[in-house]
Every structure is written in C-alpha cells, then in structure tokens.
C-alpha cells in the first residue's frame, strides 16, 4: 500500500520550514477573517493571490488552503460570543453557542467547537488521502435530479424535525425560500422582486440576512429588556468543557463529521447545509430536545464538526479532478495556473508533492488551529466582560465594516438595518430564525435543480424515481415522513380514545 509512503512523503514536504511558515500564516489570517463577519476567504484569497506568485506552488496552495479552513474555524468564535456569524457556515452555531455564552459557558462552547473541528478536519484529511479519486467520481454521478431529491429530503426533515411551533417553522422556511428567489432567474435571466434596484439583481447576500436577523435583531431585543443585559459572562463557570460536556459531545462530533464529509464531497451543495443537517439530526436524537436553542452543547459540537469536515472535503473535486466547486476553489486553481501548472486530473500524478504535501499540511494546519485557538479562549471570554452598553456598539461597528467590505455597497448596509428590524419583529412574534435561513440557502438551489432536471428530462417528472440515487433519496424522504409523522398521529388518536 503506497498510502503510507505517500503520507510520509507528504509530511516530508509539509514539514519543511518554509511550508510550515506559510501554513501558519494561512491559518492565522484565516482565523482573523473568520472572526470578522463579511470578509471571507474568497475576498482574502483573491487579494493575496498576487503574493503567491513569488513563492513555490506547494507553499502557495498550503497558505491559501489554510486561509480557507482557518476561516471556517474562526467563524464560530463571534457566533458563540455575540451571536454574530463570522462566516455563512457558522449561522447554526449561533443558535446554541450564543445561549451557552449567555449562561456563562462561552469557554466550553468555544473549546468544544475547536475540538470538534479538529476531529472533523483530521477525518476529512484522511478521507481525501484514502478515497479522494473514487469519491470524486461518485460525486460526478450527482446531476440535477439527485441534488433536488437530496435537498427535498433535507427540507422535509427540517420541517418534520422542527420543534416548538411546527407551523411557524415551516412558514419561516417558506419565507426563506421566497427571499432566496430575489434577483436574476438563472434560467431565463428575468429579474424577480428586484424593484428595478441594481443591487438586488444578484440577490440578497446571505451574510446581510444572517447578520441582520441574528446580530442586529438580537441587539434590539436585548436593549428592550428591563434589566439591560445582565453581564454576559455572568459567572464564568469554567473555561474548558467538563467531562460531562465531552461525553455529551462525542457522538454529535462523530455524526457531524460523517454528515460534513458526505455533503463536502458533493460539489453542488453550498455552505451551511452540512451544519444545518447535523443540528437537526442531533436535535432529533437527543433525549430531551427541548434543551436545543437553550444552550445545548450538542448543538455546537455537531454542526461545528460538520462544517469543518465539509470545508475539508470540498477540496476533493478540486484536487482530484481540477474542477472548482466554488469560487474559492476556482481561485485556488487560478493560483496553480499562475504558477504555470495546468489544473486538471493529471496534477495528482504529475505533481505528487503538491497533492500529498497539501493533504499533510491540512492536518498540520488543523492542529495549529487548535493550538492557536484554545489559549485564546480565555482572552475572548474576558472580552465579554466589557459592559453591554459599550459591547453592542462595537458589535455594530464590526458588523458594518464586515458587510461593507464584501461589495463596498452602502445599499447592503441599509438592507442589514432592514433585516435587523425584521429579525426583531420575528423574534417578538415567536418565529424561529434558523429555518428561515435554511430556506434562504436551499431555495435558489432547489428551484435551480428542479427546473434544470425537468428541462433536461424534456418535462418528464419520472427522472426523480428512475435514477437510482435520486430514487434512494425520495424513498428516504417518504420514510422520514412516515417515521416522524406516524407517532404524532398515533399520539393524537390515543388522546382521543382516552
């Protein structure tokens, strides 16, 4: 088996002083931009791309990759501390992570996020090393019908698993789907709900909606409370997770990693889907699902692991086939081109030092992130002791800079203000916000895949059940419905007979 030799070879490449240095720079920059909302890996990598011209191809790729997965790490920090999602994928972490922070458990939440991410990163890296090429081939079997059926399953699961006021959750998913439609229709080029406003032709940015409803909405809500913010860090119980916490998180981390790897391998699933799925799964499996949304550590551990595994596995199509699944991956391919390397499936065999060196560096980078993040926890938690009357203007400032830096668009700042008002209103009316964001992410993709599938099949809806992978998802969807809905029906019947 040459895997072992290959890995040794890879570590030999990655452990050179120069490559270690670039790996460190990458994860450090990644953590920083991850903490800040808005500024994401895409923009940062684009700006740093010219710099990579002067370093070796391996070092360039190692640094850029470090920025990418480092950002996924950093994104959870502000989500947990102040309900501000640093990256798209950390929205889910806001739900329970922020609640934990409010209960004085910011330390354990941050630590478990780091530990979960490290585990997931390790598994993701191994997966690429072991099964990269075959997995990429499987992923290519996913066409429009498969993706649609998969997302349908996700949406049904989300609706069925929603706790609390189920109808309100579903209504919010629908609202999110509708918001996601704003902008140019991919199929026809028609402008929908853009009111002749240029800025709306590309749709509303996810970060605008997320920061608006979560961060700004939460601030308005907090300021309305009679006792304006009992000090956030109330009684910081302990900085690190207890044995209890670790035991509770082990399962979610493993399952989240599995889900993250699955979604990560598929290039057509955007960010945040993996972490949403993990959250829903953990909530379903929990003995007392009522704790979710009120500071359940499983709600941080699972999604964070899923998110990092997803980020890691998104490299598979790029590394093995030279196909970019996202803008970030396209830029990394661009970095290769700048170096005079033609991206494509041949890179793996012709430039093994690139492939194996990068894989080894990812593991090293993940380890660096843990070492980098754990000591910072104490510092972060202390930041929370800033009085709320000063803390919230600071959150507003970082939100504004972050959002503005994405497109230099004042319009998006104003839109964030609007979503802040809406978020507050929805909170007051008892609407859960996460399902809306799930709908917002899934909506445009589902529509795109459904219409594409129908277009390519010539209007024949049977494509969804004649293609085996798609059929499997449809069957799973039906099963979820039966399994989940049946007990509640039975319960109702029993109630009647009583």
């Amino acid at each position, binding site marked *: 088996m040459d895997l072992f030799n290959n890995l040794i070879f890879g570590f030999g490449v990655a452990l050179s002083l120069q490559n270690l240095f670039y790996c460190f720079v990458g994860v450090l920059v990644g953590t920083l931009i991850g903490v800040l909302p808005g500024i994401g890996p*895409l923009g940062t990598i684009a700006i740093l791309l010219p710099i990579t011209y002067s370093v070796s191809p391996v070092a360039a790729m190692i640094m850029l990759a470090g920025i990418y997965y480092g950002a996924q790490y950093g994104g959870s920090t502000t989500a947990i501390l102040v309900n501000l999602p640093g990256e798209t994928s950390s929205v889910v972490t806001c739900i329970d992570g922020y609640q934990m922070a409010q209960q004085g458990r910011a330390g354990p939440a941050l630590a478990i996020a780091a530990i979960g991410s490290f585990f997931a990163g390790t598994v993701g890296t191994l997966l690429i090393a072991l099964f990269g090429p075959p997995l990429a081939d499987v992923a290519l079997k996913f066409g*429009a019908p498969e993706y649609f059926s998969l997302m349908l399953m996700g949406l049904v699961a989300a609706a069925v698993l929603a706790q609390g006021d189920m109808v309100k959750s579903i209504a919010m998913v629908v609202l999110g789907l509708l918001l996601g439609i704003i902008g140019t229709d*991919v199929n026809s080029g028609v402008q929908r709900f853009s009111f002749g406003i240029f800025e709306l032709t590309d749709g509303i940015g996810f970060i605008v909606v997320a920061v608006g409803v979560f961060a700004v909405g939460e601030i308005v809500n907090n300021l309305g409370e009679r006792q304006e913010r009992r000090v956030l860090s109330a009684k910081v119980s302990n900085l690190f997770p207890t044995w209890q916490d670790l035991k509770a998180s082990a399962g979610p981390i493993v399952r989240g990693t599995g889900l993250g790897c699955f979604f990560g391998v598929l290039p057509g699933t955007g960010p945040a889907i993996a972490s949403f799925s993990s959250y829903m799964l953990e909530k379903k499996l929990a003995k007392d699902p009522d704790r979710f949304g009120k500071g359940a550590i499983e709600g941080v551990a699972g999604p964070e692991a899923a998110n990092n595994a997803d980020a890691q596995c998104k490299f598979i199509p790029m590394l093995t086939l030279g196909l970019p699944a996202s803008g970030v991956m396209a830029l990394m391919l661009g970095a290769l081109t*700048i170096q005079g390397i*033609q991206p*494509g*499936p041949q*890179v793996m065999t012709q430039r093994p030092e690139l492939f194996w060196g990068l894989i080894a560096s990812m593991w090293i980078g993940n380890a660096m992130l843990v070492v980098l993040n754990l000591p910072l926890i104490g510092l972060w938690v202390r930041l929370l002791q800033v009085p709320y009357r000063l803390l919230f203007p600071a959150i507003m400032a970082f939100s504004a800079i972050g959002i503005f830096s994405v*497109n230099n668009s004042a319009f998006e700042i104003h839109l964030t203000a609007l979503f802040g008002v809406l978020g507050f209103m929805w909170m007051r009316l008892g609407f859960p916000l996460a399902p809306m964001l799930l709908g917002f992410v899934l909506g445009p993709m589902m529509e795109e895949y459904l219409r594409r599938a129908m277009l390519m099949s010539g209007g024949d809806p049977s494509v969804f059940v004649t293609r085996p992978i798609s059929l499997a998802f449809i069957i799973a969807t039906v099963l979820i419905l039966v399994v989940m809905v049946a007990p509640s029906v039975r319960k109702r019947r029993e109630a009647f007979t009583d």
Partner: protein
Amino acid sequence: MPAIRALPLATLLLAASLTPAAAQQYPAKPIRLIIPSAPGGSNDVVGRPIATFLGERLGRQIIVDNRAGAGTMIGTELASKAPNDGYTLLVVSIAFAVNPWLYDLRGRYDPIKSFTPVAMLAAGPNVLAVNPSLPVNNVKELIALAKEKPGKIGWASAGVGSFQHLGGSLFELQAGVKFLGVRFKGGGPAMIDVVAGHNQVAFSSLVQTTGQIQSGKLKALGVGSKKRVPILPDVPTIDEAGVPGYEASNWWGIVAPAGVPQAAVDRIRKELAVVLTAQPVIDQFANEGAEVVQMSQGEFADFIAAELKKWQQVVKDSGMKAE
C-alpha cells in the same frame, strides 16, 4: 453647492491648461481603479496585477475598488459618474458591450458617451468542448448531430449574458443550430456537469477547459479566436472548422470617465505598454485564460464600437433579452 464646488475645480483646470508642466506631473495623487466584479471575478483577476505594476511605474498607488453587482453594471455606473480628472479608471470586459442590449440603462450610463477608452489589456478565446461520450469529432459533425436532434443536445453555460452563454448563442446563430440551453449560477458548476456527462456541450475559457482536455475528460472541437492558441495547437479555430466568421473571445480593457485629460491617458498608455510585457503580468493573466493584446487608443475605441454592434445583433437575433 455645485457652484462652490465648481470654483476650485475651474481654477485648477485653468492652472492646468496654463502650465503644461502640471499636466506632466500626473499622477499627483493615488488613482482609483474600479473593478466591477468581486475579488476573484474575471475583471478582478486581470485588473489587480495591472493596479500593482502600473502603480509602480507611475510612482503612485493604484487603489483597487471592487464594486461588484448586476453583471458589472453597478461598478460601471459608479465610474461613469466619477470625476473625469484621470484619477478614476474602470476595468471593462465583454459585459460592457453586451449589457446595454440586455438591460435598460437609460439614465444610468452610455457605453460610448459616458467613457473615454484608454487601453486594451487582454483577450481570451472561448473553447468549444464536448463530453467524450458525444459521438462527434469535429465542429461539422457537431453541427450535423445538432441539426438531426434540434434542442436535444445539452449545452451547459453560466447565466444569460455571461461570456460562456454569449459564445454558445453566437455559435447557435451562425451555425444555424439549436441546443438545449441549460444555465448554471457560474462557469465552474457548468463545467462539472459537462465533465460528468449530464450535459454534453460547453463554451468556456481556456483556463477552465485545458486541464480537462489534456486529460481526456473533455474533447475540444474548436477555439473561438482568429488564430489557433499555443496551448492547444491541434485544436482548430471554429472559424476554420466549419463556422466561417465565428469569433467569440472575452476581453478586458481600461476606460475612464468621458473627457478625461489626454495627458493622463497618454501617461497611462505609455507605462501600460511596458507593464503589459512584464512576465508576472503575463503569468497572472493566464489565470483567466487571457493573453495580452495591445492596441492604439483609436483601435481600442473602434474595437469597443464593433463589439457593441456585434452583440447587439446577437442579443436581438437570439432573443436572449429577458422580458
């Protein structure tokens, strides 16, 4: 307010016209280069190295200002309303010549009247590539197959008005065929679908296709440029392979708000001529499949006018304008 503002400006202009030395001192402050796409977008990949190296030559910083949105129209409109003092420049691409026919730009900007062409930077041909499972070996066979099965062969492209979409639409018109047009959010996902075989035909940039062609995952039938490209020497041009007159390339250039001082334009052009021969610039352009093209200012103006005319016709004939 405008009067007060105009006063110093007028004195400045007067001073500038009286003392030619002042004009020679351009640039006296940092220059803003508006890039109407997000970091990482095609205009950005081409524009960013220009900002770095041209800034060095001019001895002044060139600040990159990404103003993405609405298929480059947000940044373009912003540039059209900027002061025409030579301190605001705009990177334009093929979208500049297409958007006026796809969208209502009244009251926003006019591609000819609102801008002064400064310099052409680069061009990158598109490549007609098919999934190897499609039983065709050249452009003529593809046309024959498409005529046999009109509207059945899947052609994957990015959205309406994108470079890939335009290349395919032009092909449909000139070859007299009709594909099953399948649109994606971006060029990357469209390529994945063609490599995977869910769709069969793609018109895409060199950088997105070359690796796949060399490894046999895609079959190249033709390139959209006038001459064959060095990296794919065996691939004929689409023009020679069966669609005479076909030419579809993405291109990039720099324009300034109309009425920019000629002295500024001359200075920029003089330095650009050097910058465009620098190896780092050439290498970074390759990232977008772009090759340096140098034109005189007049040639560039004629080129823009010709592109506008060409795509007006294509947009009209293909009926791609959304109602």
